[in-house]
């Protein structure tokens, strides 16, 4: 069945082998070209330090700073890399979305629409809308109430938040951004089946 009734000398088998070879080669090429969008690099966290910066804001999430807020001048560092390493990465956007909820960014920024804090899903950026600017806003804090997160959370998490915030205003590719979060309802819903077991 692999060799149809071949007339002698048509070389049909050879043609099939050639095509199979081309297909396998393309598959291998694709293997090397892995999609950045889909990377899930759990180990990229390895190099990330908590950013040791001079905060712009005196507000700090979760209370006191390490070392009582003292920063040794010799240890001042800016973000180690002002390029967003997670640009276009779907996993980072998803993690950023999770951290946005976990760290209660929604408390001031709602789901991007703003409230106490400014809206994040429009094109108005008080302190700049480039990834580096947003990084510094989160890391160092800003006047008028934005806390400094840098001393408290690792750099890679700040970049994940940056990527998510960018996705709110459509600056990230649509293919990497989820269509919707899993919970948008206001208030709480009663879980189903509340009551005694049968």
């Amino acid at each position: 069945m692999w060799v149809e009734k071949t007339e002698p000398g048509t070389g049909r088998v050879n043609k099939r082998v050639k095509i199979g070879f081309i297909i396998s080669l393309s598959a291998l090429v694709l293997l090397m070209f892995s999609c950045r969008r889909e990377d899930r690099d759990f180990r990229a966290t390895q190099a990330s330090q908590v950013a040791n910066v001079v905060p712009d804001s005196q507000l700090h999430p979760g209370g006191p700073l390490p070392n009582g807020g003292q920063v040794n001048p010799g240890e001042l560092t800016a973000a180690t890399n002002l390029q967003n390493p997670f640009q276009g990465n779907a996993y980072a956007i998803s993690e950023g979305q999770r951290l946005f909820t976990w760290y209660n960014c929604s408390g001031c920024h709602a789901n991007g629409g703003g409230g106490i804090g400014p809206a994040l899903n429009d094109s108005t950026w008080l302190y700049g809308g480039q990834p580096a600017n947003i990084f510094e806003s989160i890391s160092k804090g800003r006047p008028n109430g934005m806390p400094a997160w840098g001393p408290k959370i690792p750099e890679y998490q700040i970049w994940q938040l940056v990527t998510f915030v960018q996705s709110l205003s459509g600056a990230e590719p649509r293919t990497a951004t989820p269509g919707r979060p899993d919970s948008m309802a206001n208030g709480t819903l009663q879980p189903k089946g509340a009551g005694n077991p049968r």
Partner: protein
Amino acid sequence: MKTSFRFSAKAGYIVLLTIIFLTQLSCKGIQSALDPAGPESGRINNLWWLLFGVCAVVFILVITFLFYALAHARRYKDGAPIGIDAQKKMTRNISICVAITVIILFVFLVASLTIGKSIYTNSSPDVLTIEVVGHQWWWEVHYPTDEASKRVVTANEIHIPVGQPVRLRLSSGDVIHSFWVPNLQGKMDLIPMHLNSEWIKADHPGVFRGQCAEFCGHQHAHMSLLVIAEPQDQFNAWMDQQRQSTNTPSDPVLQRGQHVFLSSTCILCHTIRGTLANGTNAPDLTHLASRQTIAAGTLPNNRGYLSGWVVDSQSIKPGNKMPPNHLNPDDLQALLTYLESLK
């Protein structure tokens, strides 16, 4: 002809012995469904042996007949057509076999429904309720009570008194998980926005291991828990201890450790009652040192493993939600000493 029948009978006998031998291997063990420690799992265990016994016999009969048929199939020579009598006999035999099948299935059905009802009901009025909320990839455990000061919140470890029916109220904070402690009961799914329930009861003291049984993402394999059944007085002592919150430590190392905890990333997700740390995204650490395992049953709870977990949980449970924490060595040691003091 006779020898091949004897051969097929012997083969069936060997198969039966092999099956019995293999199943004997599975009887005992932590997290084994065939090592029941409570009435629910005990009844399921009995049902299993009924099902297995009958099915094994059926299987042996079918295969024996297959061998017999293969050995005796040359009785009709040269394509002589089957006579009407032989045909009627075969029809009758098949009908008898089908009737036996129906009866067996009916027996199974009744057994299954009866036992099913019994594992879902409880007539005792004395019930302890425990709420479990599943997260990626840990178990949040509450012992609800009306008095706020008597609430117990812990993670990945459940204590129950021996002999007491316990009602588990199960839900999920993200995806579908499944609560399964085979020694005690069948499994029940934890579904977001659904509240499921099941009964467990331990007949004797012991430590029973459970594991999430619904694929829930990267670390589904490392989402286990312990159910510890202990005598009533030990259970009461445990509850009293869990109800207490922490005091400000007087020892300078512990103070330093607490300071490290409160000024690092930890405070954003974890709770230690009695301090400013009130994060609800991650396990409650108020009595961390009283638990036997950390990381949802993945690691034993001792200083070495705890240190590795705090510093780089991603190399132990890649993809889990806790970031690595690069602390300087003195801070780390102080933190560990502090965490070890949270009994």
